């Protein structure tokens, strides 16, 4: 497969500076990287590690507010740091291609997929327009997109997220580049969709013997895709080794800590006897206008327990949460809290009913008002429900900040944009706790976070549950999270509950076929996992696998 072992990309002592607070600060401190033809290198690390910055630098490009300040980048014998901008531009798109995290944001919504696909080859006079269209259809077929002859003539919003990401990969292949940089191509996708995209990318990179840099923070994914793994931390290289060695025997402590993240697990709790459920969803149907989105959804949440609601996007998980909070009044069925039926709309509920059920959001960025100080964000619910004022309010806010492990004196007067993602999520938790609820809905609370940070949040939630006897409804599509924190699991698909039960039962066969598909789609650390799964499912029907 890889006969051609000469060096394609050689980066030495790469230094990149970023401009902030009116001065240049070094963000990548001398990283070396050697990539051979046809080789796939995985770059991993948490956010701020400089993964994307290094990936872009491999094209001789520095994003706005950054500059390459030292070192050399040699691509196929050409020194990119000293060549002219126009020469570098000629390389990009034709010999080096880039696949971004969000395909939806990277495609121009006003043009058809195939027109965007043919743009680069026609521009570089590699192919005529018609030839290039033929080629696009062949690539679509290889990437197992449905209707390869026809799909290119759709607009980006007319195809699904996973298909769009594959079309993006096809587009990167349009000029048959020597190097493709994949920047978190599957992070925004569901597990079931992710597996299709991963398989497609791996196949095509193999077939054309293209070298690739695969940037991700998901270790299990990188284990499937790459020949070599390089671990980065705060702009420094931690270690580099081939995938097998790296997985089996990491040398550095930091790498070991990354590997250990998935080990957090909590024993399953049993339903408490002789108590009524704190929140009970009974035969709920809901609709957005004429479109039915929930059908006959029922489940119970008992005090001190965590119920995980899983399913891919569009399965109605978040809609169920909206029904419980009263944002979307159900068309039929009841929401019962502590034996009392709640009014369908939040507008009719009493202050105390509203206080009982709180919510933590997925995107902490949009869930916290950027123009309000932390003390007011957390203090408002305490003042609103508890009527606290003055020093009493301040001591309550301090207490809450202590509870979420943030130092009160340091964070009291700050604004949300001054905090990191994990800290923001903690403030979101504190805001929910300030209302002294008994039931909290956690809507994908960890999916926007790095693994180490997410782990911290999960541990915090677990500790709070034990201390305050909270009940959680945990909405997620990440089964690793379910495995670590849930007591009971509800699997949803297309607005219906497919299967539900205690965690132990749910993770042991036999499963409902859909649960099975979800479970088997979660990437594992074994580098041969993808191959095995694909063999089990039969490679050819991978496109349909998600539609079972």
């Amino acid at each position, binding site marked *: 497969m890889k006969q051609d072992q000469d060096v394609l990309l050689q980066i030495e002592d790469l230094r990149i500076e970023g401009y902030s607070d009116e001065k240049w600060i070094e963000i990548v401190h001398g990283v070396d990287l050697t990539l051979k033809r046809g080789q796939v290198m995985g770059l991993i690390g948490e956010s701020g590690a400089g993964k994307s910055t290094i990936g872009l630098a491999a094209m001789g490009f520095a994003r706005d507010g950054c500059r390459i300040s030292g070192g050399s980048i040699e691509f196929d014998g050409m020194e990119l740091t000293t060549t002219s901008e126009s020469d570098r531009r000629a390389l990009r798109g034709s010999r080096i291609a880039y696949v971004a995290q969000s395909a939806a944001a990277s495609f121009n919504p006003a043009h058809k997929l195939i027109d965007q696909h043919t743009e680069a080859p026609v521009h570089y006079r590699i192919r005529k327009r018609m030839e290039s269209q033929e080629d696009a259809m062949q690539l679509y077929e290889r990437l197992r997109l449905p209707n390869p002859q026809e799909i290119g003539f759709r607009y980006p919003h007319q195809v699904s997220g996973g298909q769009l990401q594959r079309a993006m990969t096809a587009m990167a292949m349009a000029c048959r580049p020597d190097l493709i940089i994949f920047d978190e191509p599957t992070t925004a996708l569901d597990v079931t969709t992710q597996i299709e995209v991963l398989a497609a990318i791996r196949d095509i990179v193999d077939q054309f013997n293209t070298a690739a840099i695969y940037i991700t923070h998901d270790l299990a994914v990188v284990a499937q895709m790459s020949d070599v793994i390089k671990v980065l931390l705060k702009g420094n290289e931690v270690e580099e080794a081939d995938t097998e060695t790296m997985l089996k025997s990491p040398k550095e402590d930091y790498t070991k800590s990354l590997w250990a993240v998935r080990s957090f697990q909590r024993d399953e709790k049993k339903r408490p006897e002789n108590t009524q459920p704190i929140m009970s969803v009974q035969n709920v149907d809901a609709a957005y206008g004429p479109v039915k989105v929930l059908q006959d959804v029922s489940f119970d949440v008992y005090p001190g327990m965590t119920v995980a609601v899983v399913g891919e996007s569009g399965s109605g998980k978040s809609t169920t949460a909206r029904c419980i909070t009263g944002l979307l009044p159900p068309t039929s069925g009841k929401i019962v809290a502590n034996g009392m039926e709640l009014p369908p709309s939040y507008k009719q509920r009493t202050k105390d009913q509203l206080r009982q059920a709180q919510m933590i959001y997925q995107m902490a960025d949009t869930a916290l008002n950027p*123009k309000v100080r932390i003390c007011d964000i957390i203090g408002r619910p305490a003042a609103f429900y508890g009527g606290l004022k003055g020093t009493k309010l301040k001591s309550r806010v301090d207490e809450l900040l202590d509870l979420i492990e943030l130092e009160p004196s340091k964070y009291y007067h700050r604004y949300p944009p001054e905090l990191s993602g994990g800290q923001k999520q903690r403030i979101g938790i504190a805001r929910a706790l300030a209302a002294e609820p008994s039931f909290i809905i956690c809507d994908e609370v960890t999916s926007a976070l790095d693994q180490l940070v997410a782990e911290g949040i999960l541990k915090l939630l677990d500790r709070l549950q034990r201390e305050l006897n909270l009940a959680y409804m945990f909405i997620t599509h990440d089964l690793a999270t379910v495995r670590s924190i849930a007591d009971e699991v509800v699997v949803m698909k297309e607005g219906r509950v497919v299967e539900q039960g205690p965690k132990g039962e749910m993770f042991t066969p036999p499963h409902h076929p859909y649960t099975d598909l979800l479970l088997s789609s979660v990437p594992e650390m074994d580098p041969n996992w993808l191959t095995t799964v694909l063999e089990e499912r039969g490679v050819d029907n991978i496109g349909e696998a998600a539609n079972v």
Partner: protein
Amino acid sequence: MSYFIVGYYALLIGASCLAAFYQKRGVFLILFSLTLISFIVGIVGGESSLWFITLCAAALALAAGTSFAFREFLVIVLPTELSKAVKTAPLTAAFGLFVIMTYAIAGVFAPIIAPFGEAEVISSAFAPADENMILGADQLGRDLFSRLVYGARNTVGLALTATICAFLLGAVGGMLAATIGGWFDQFMGRLVDVIMSVPSLIFALLLLSIFGTNVAILVIIIAVIYAPRVFRLTRAVAGNVVVMDYIEAARLRGEGTFYLIRREILPNSTAPLIAEFGLEFCFVFLLVAGLSFLGLGIQPPTADWGSMVRENATLISFGEITPLFPAAAIALLTVAVNFVVDWMLYRSSGLKS
């Protein structure tokens, strides 16, 4: 050849050489093209045209110098957070702030600054400037400078009040429409469409001839005419904020509409609203001046820049520049406000590089 011309070219050429030597391409290009233009202008228009260029350059340099000094002054005087913002302001914005401050002082302290009363006849009609009246007299023999100073108070004061009223009306309506939504939003939107469909000057003339011209009615009419634009902007900005999760969180907490608007939506829409305030102020200002010029604005003998232009307009045909002074006062304030608004727009758009 006079010393002036020799000095003029020597200075320009020397400066261009220095700029070229220190590799300041932009500066060099400006200086040297000025030199080349001066050759042509000098041959065609003679020494006086070169004097004119020199005076313009001096005025520009003076304005830049004043702006720079004023900015440094503000940085020192203002509290830390504001001074940080001012420090990064471009010179144009500093110039705008300086002009606005001068106008404000002139308006507030008009009776102290003006040497004569607003309606005091002190000399013959259209008397030329002398040591008493630095800008001469108007068509009734009143001191033009004193009337300019009083005009700052009347015209700007009226425009400011009207703009603030328009903003209160439009912004409150827009935020309510965005927050409440549904039929209220539709109703407000259509109402605004109706008002906007009539050309503003004609609408104002119509209303003024129905209700008569006094200051209170003028303010109300202008506020009604300009509120729709503010409404549309506010509704759009607030519409983007209302869909955020923190608004949902506040709604689920059981917060009332007033709290939502005041604490959650307003802080997130101030920047575009302030910028819009500056722009609207200019439009309102021009409308007031225009109405006065047509005789339906502020009534005599109250000093007002728009009517001053009209009253002295006949002088223009005699080659006098007197009527241009109030017009220049209007133009300068409009430019100054726009400079400041540009800076605020730049800051709120977040484009920093």
